[in-house]
């Protein structure tokens, strides 16, 4: 159900406005009507600050906070600036570290040497060339033939240097390497220095992480400031900017509270009942069961103000479809157990999701019994002993196929009935006559085909059927657009009939997916069972371990994939087939009152 809304307009003297806004925020009932088209400068700055704070908090989340008490006064701007600087420094140092590690690896064979010695050699016209070659290909005679010196043997490679003067022959068999940029000890020192700087940065991160709570408080302050700034941007300035006009919505049941608030604050106000043209925000009110399904409806769209809220109508169907798709009594038990265990451990806002999972688990158990599936085992083929009477309620695949189409037809007809009520609510009952005509015609035709063999009066296209068809035909062809020309109505009736014939067939056939998902899930479960018992080796203990392992992994995968499909496809059937036949328009805005975040 959609809660009725009242539109309020407050006129406040400009000097009293900040105080008024603070009191209004504390009351937390008014959904402010949005007026501004673009984001102002102050709002942009607040959004940037919030983004920076969220980024900083998320970054410091993974850092170990230090135990030291930071006695320095906390300055947010300095903190964020410093964090940005040291993050950049950290990135640069990490890149440098990688580079120096690679250089260290390159200079390692050459060990320690002095750059001044190399310079002295160069001043004498001598150049050092650096070579490497595999031990197998190294010819010890080269030491006699060429002015070379072996420096190192590492991992089957010989590293040696050759002293060259201009005109000397090169050693072509060896690979000439780049001269080392520095000695091994110099590079080691450089790397140690970089790592020391990185450790200092990590220590500073820890110190900053211990101030994460202060950051979170600043984030809350910034978010509240943003909310207030948005309200300022939505305020109209009247009478030479001396009077502030603020418009908003609140539930009609809270009208007295708001009128008292306005009188207490000495503020002039106007109030009028909400109309669909004003696009009031939507606040849904449903019973405890249907309320669990509101997040699912919100994934698609909220209804507009003068529509029927479909949550309580699609909720039982959704639950049934989920159960139909997953259809395994064992999986249903697991869902209920898991939801019950986690319900006491999760945050308060996630508990409704756990309750929803419990209901969906119950539906899965029921349909598991109906389809005769328990952890992939086909109960129809088993001797159940004292529970053999359960076989009477179990359906084989042929009957399941028909059941899927039947539940689809029922939901579509139900949707049509809701469409009639919706049209009557939005306009008047004359607008619903054509839809009622279709509903009666389709239902009666289905009843004739189903019962025509048993009840002679209900013979398809017999007298009674033709009479009903004629009466409903008048409603369909001449009442589809009240107030219009009868010939236009007739033409629209033909178009409506074409849409109904093609659309209805496609919509009903769409429910075959329930049968397909149910059957494939059961077969896959059975396949995992066969794999577990068929592939296990005939060794005591090992056999049992392998069986349990395959069963756990296989059924977990099946439960996850089946659960995902069981969630997605009923959603699709609800949002497309059901909503379409119920003439759901959607597009409502969520009621979001101006209040403080805690």
């Amino acid at each position, binding site marked *: 159900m959609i809660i009725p809304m009242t539109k309020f307009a407050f006129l406040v003297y400009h000097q009293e406005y900040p105080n008024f806004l603070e009191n209004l925020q504390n009351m937390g009932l008014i959904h402010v009507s949005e007026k501004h088209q673009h984001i102002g400068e102050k709002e942009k700055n607040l959004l940037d600050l919030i983004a920076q704070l969220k980024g900083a908090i998320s970054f410091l989340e993974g850092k170990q906070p230090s135990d030291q008490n930071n006695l320095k006064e906390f300055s947010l701007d300095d903190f964020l600036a410093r964090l940005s600087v040291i993050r950049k420094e950290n990135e640069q140092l990490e890149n440098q570290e990688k580079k120096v590690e690679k250089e260290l690896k390159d200079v390692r064979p050459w060990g320690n040497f002095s750059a001044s010695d190399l310079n002295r050699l160069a001043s004498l016209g001598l150049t050092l060339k650096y070579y490497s070659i595999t031990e197998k290909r190294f010819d010890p005679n080269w030491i006699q033939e060429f002015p070379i010196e072996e420096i190192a043997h590492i991992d089957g490679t010989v590293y040696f240097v050759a002293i060259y003067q201009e005109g000397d022959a090169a050693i072509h068999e060896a690979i000439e390497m780049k001269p080392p940029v520095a000695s091994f000890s110099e590079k080691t020192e450089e790397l140690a220095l970089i790592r020391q700087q990185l450790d200092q940065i990590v220590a500073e991160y820890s110190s900053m992480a211990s101030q994460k709570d202060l950051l979170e408080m600043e984030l809350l302050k910034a978010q509240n400031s943003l909310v207030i700034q948005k309200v300022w941007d939505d305020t109209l300035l009247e009478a030479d900017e001396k009077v502030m006009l603020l418009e908003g919505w609140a539930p009609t049941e809270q009208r007295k509270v708001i009128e008292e608030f306005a009188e207490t604050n000495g503020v002039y106000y106007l109030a009028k009942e909400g109309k669909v043209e004003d696009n009031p925000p939507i606040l849904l009110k449903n019973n405890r069961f249907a309320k669990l399904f509101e997040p699912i409806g919100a*994934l698609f769209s909220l209804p507009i103000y003068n529509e029927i809220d479909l949550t309580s109508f699609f909720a039982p169907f959704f639950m049934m479809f989920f159960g139909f798709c997953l259809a395994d009594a064992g999986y249903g038990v697991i869902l209920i157990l898991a939801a019950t265990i986690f319900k006491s451990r999760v945050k308060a806002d996630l508990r409704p999701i756990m309750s929803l999972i419990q209901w969906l688990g119950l539906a899965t158990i029921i349909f598991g019994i109906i389809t005769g599936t328990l952890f992939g085992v086909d109960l129809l083929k088993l001797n159940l002993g004292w529970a053999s009477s359960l076989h009477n309620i179990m359906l084989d*695949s042929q009957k399941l196929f028909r059941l899927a189409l039947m539940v689809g037809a029922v939901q579509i007809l139900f949707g049509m009935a809701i469409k009639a009520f919706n049209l009557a609510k939005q306009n008047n009952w004359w607008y619903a006559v054509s839809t009622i005509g279709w509903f009666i015609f389709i239902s009666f035709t289905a009843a004739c085909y189903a019962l025509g063999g048993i009840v002679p009066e209900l013979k398809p296209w017999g007298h009674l059927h033709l009479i009903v068809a004629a009466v409903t035909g008048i409603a369909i062809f001449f009442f589809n657009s009240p107030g219009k020309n009868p010939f236009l109505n007739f033409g629209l009736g033909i178009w409506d009939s074409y849409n109904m014939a093609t659309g209805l067939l*496609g919509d009903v*056939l769409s429910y075959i*997916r329930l049968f397909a998902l149910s*059957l494939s899930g059961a077969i896959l479960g059975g396949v995992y069972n066969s794999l577990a018992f068929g592939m296990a080796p005939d060794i005591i203990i090992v056999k049992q371990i392998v069986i349990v392992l395959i069963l756990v992994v296989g059924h977990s995968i099946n439960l996850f994939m089946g659960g995902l*499909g069981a969630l*997605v496809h009923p959603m699709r059937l609800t949002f*497309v087939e059901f909503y379409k036949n119920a003439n759901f328009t959607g597009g409502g805005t969520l009621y979001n009152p101006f209040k403080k975040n805690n």
Partner: protein
Amino acid sequence: MVILSGVGSSLGVTITGNASIGALKKESSAFGNFLVLSALPGTQGLYGFTGYFMLKDFLVPSITWFQAAAIFGAGLAMGTVGLISAIRQGQVCANGITAIGNGHKVFGNTLILAVFPELYAIISLAAVFLIGTSLGA
């Protein structure tokens, strides 16, 4: 039946999965929408599997030529339609995911438009069922 529709579904969900990864970079809060749209092309593979299951009882050594031809026809129909409709449905859903990632509120519209390619796969499955029923009779 199983091969072609399975290949179609795996290609379809790959297309939507890739689009979702890209869209998550822009709009990480809409993962729920992306998940629903990504899973839609996966049903054709299930339809192929279900179609096989409906006809498997006829796969015995004493199968007649008529039955074999009918099963081959059913397999070709289901497989071909499943393959192409899954890929195309994946492309429709991927475009919807990209649009949601760019900030457009088109989840419902995408769901509706993605129905159209899948309808033909459902009709093929219904045809397989009817072929199985007539072979049984």
